[in-house]
């Protein structure tokens, strides 16, 4: 049962979309917690949000949007059979992903340096809502960061497949699905960013 006479592209795409639903719902659980606790501790959440660096958040948003643009352009490039350009564009996406992670690292280490991390003494002694806000922040952005790493690795693997000739204009479903995954990672950040960095 290893031979498949014809590939079902629509099926592969449907499967990917279904998988993306599951990712949305995974983060949905965290957004649900956010909304309930936000209603309970609006002041503490606003105070917590002010402690986050909105400039770094904005830069990261721009970086991720650019990375998504590169991913979308890579798909078009492969469909036009411009394989070298496609690999370069995926390289751009991965570079953006790396930049995003570096900024995230700087942000996290600054917070941890100030004694703000889940379970820290500082948060234990502060107001309860602040502890909830930062625990949610670290868990949500942590899981999102994990998705950035997975997405970057996935795209790197697909770039190798393009170089190897396995992904090309006639057979681009892998890249299309990989790019869809990347857009999802981007999309989730678009929700995380205002909820954590831009609340009043």
């Amino acid at each position, binding site marked *: *049962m*290893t031979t498949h006479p014809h590939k*079902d592209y*629509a*099926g*592969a795409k*449907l*499967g990917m979309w*279904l*998988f993306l*639903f*599951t*990712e*949305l*719902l*995974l*983060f*949905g*659980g*965290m957004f*649900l*917690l956010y909304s*309930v*606790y936000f209603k*309970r*501790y609006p002041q*503490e959440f606003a105070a917590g949000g002010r402690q986050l660096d909105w400039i770094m958040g904005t830069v990261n948003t721009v970086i991720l949007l650019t990375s998504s643009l590169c991913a979308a352009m890579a798909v078009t490039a492969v469909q036009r059979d411009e394989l070298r350009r496609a690999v370069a564009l995926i390289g751009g996406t991965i570079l953006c992903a790396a930049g995003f992670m570096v900024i995230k690292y700087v942000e996290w280490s600054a917070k941890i340096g100030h004694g703000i*991390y*889940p*379970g820290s003494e500082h*948060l*234990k002694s502060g*107001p*309860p*809502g*602040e*502890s*909830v806000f930062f*625990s*949610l922040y*670290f*868990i949500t952005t942590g*899981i999102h960061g994990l998705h950035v790493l997975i997405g970057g690795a996935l795209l790197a693997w697909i770039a190798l497949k393009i170089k190897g000739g396995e992904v090309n204009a006639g057979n681009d479903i892998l890249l299309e699905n990989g790019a869809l995954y990347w857009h999802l990672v981007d999309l989730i950040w678009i929700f995380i960013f205002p909820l954590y960095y831009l609340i009043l």
Partner: protein
Amino acid sequence: MDSNVQKVTAQPSCFWNDTGKSGLTSWIFSTDHKRIGLLYFYATFGFFLTGVLLGLLLRVELMAPGRTIVGPQTYNALFTVHGVVMIFLFIIPGIPGAFGNMVMPIQVGARDVSFPRLNLLSWWLYITGAIIILTSLFSGGGAPDTGWTFYVPFSSRTGTNVSLAVFGVFIVGFSSILTGVNFVTTIHRLRAEGMTWGRLPLFTWSLYATAWVQILATPILAITLVLIMTERLLGAGLFDPARGGDPIMYQHLFWIYSHPAVYIMILPAMGIVSDIIPVFSRKPIFGYKMIAFSSIAIAAAGSLVWGHHMFTSGMSDTAVMVFSFLTFVVAIPSAIKVFNWVSTLYRGSISLEAPMLFALSFILLFSIGGLSGLILGSAATDVHVHDTHFVVGHFHYVMFGGTGFAIFAAMHYWLPKFYGRRYAEKPAVVAWALMFTGFNVLYFTMQVLGMKGMPRRYYDYLPEFATLNLVATVGSWILAAGLVIMLVNLFRGLWWGAPFEGNPWGGATLEWSIPTPPPTENFVEEPTVTHGPYDFTGIGR
């Protein structure tokens, strides 16, 4: 596994031998949906037997008041592991993983599922998760003692190995999601020519509804389990009132998954029953469209009723009323199914063979379970019986009397198709009678005990409950005796029994139109479907 491969190699060319590969690796690395289905079957059924043993131990402990064989800590671990194994390793993956994989692609007229390699990955994730869960029992602080619901705050504080067990369940959940993705895609994309939505067998319809629940609900479980791990490992405090968190939020998240999950468990069982009853009544199913629709309706409405697990946890009265109302709404599509099955039986030419007996007991036992569920769904009565043996009895009526008996029905109905050999009828009927009797003695007694006020999850009880507990324990032995007879008879038959050829049950769905056992490619030539799944015209017995 290997020994039974040998037994069947004497058969004509079929999926057991026609790939030219044999041995363990041809199974555990196979992408053939039938082989993966059998792998799931043996793995899940192995865990079922493990769970049964634990359950029997629980009943022995409760046979008499006071300490009988184990102390409180061991008792806590026993009921937790019984629950975790039965729920996450048997009953959730049981029907979709085993019979869904074996039968569904053939029923829609496909050669395999949409993503055969993903299917294999799901099985491996399932096994990996299972191994992690088993490891958690014997390492760290010992077997989890929280109950299968892992409620905070206890689960974030207990010294037992909750983190590892929860991680194992997380991995198993991943497997469930991938199966769901695979099945929805397969049913959308790989139906044979002429296999319209109106001609899909109802088992496939039920798997379709189930797969959506697997896709939409399981991620919530995943994040909930991650949050337990962050509570334990990082001390995040999201569910800790001292730190601004709220334990009730854990219960909400947990039940947002786990209530729909009971529909992952029961819906495909209803599908099995919908497929078996018309075949053994020689009549087209009554209300095909309504049964198919009610599967979707149960999946949809069932996603909105999780709060009924929390009537006594602390919710606003409005929330209690809304959740209670929605719970009663779910009863409607469930009742639609029951009435349609009964109407199918009406004036049918019924033959009471083993699969039919199990399917008929499903209707009765599920109805008892379902009606007792309404007592729990109504807020006023729930407060009285909450956390008593009534809940245990109710749950087992639905899950064991329902899904369990449907799985036994499926084993007698479909396994001969895949082995090409049949079991002996008489011992199967004796086994059924014993199990049916033992089941009711065990669980009906539990419901009575619960009404009298015996709490669940206690290893000890007041002397006034002693007689009924003894009766329940004796019931568990009758049930176990029937189970042993059923298994010996079934597997002896599958391996050494008389040949099972052609279409002995007279089924009209596609799996009965292909050779027995099926060839690896399922269909000798691409099928074209010209009649409905329960159109028995011209199909004899």
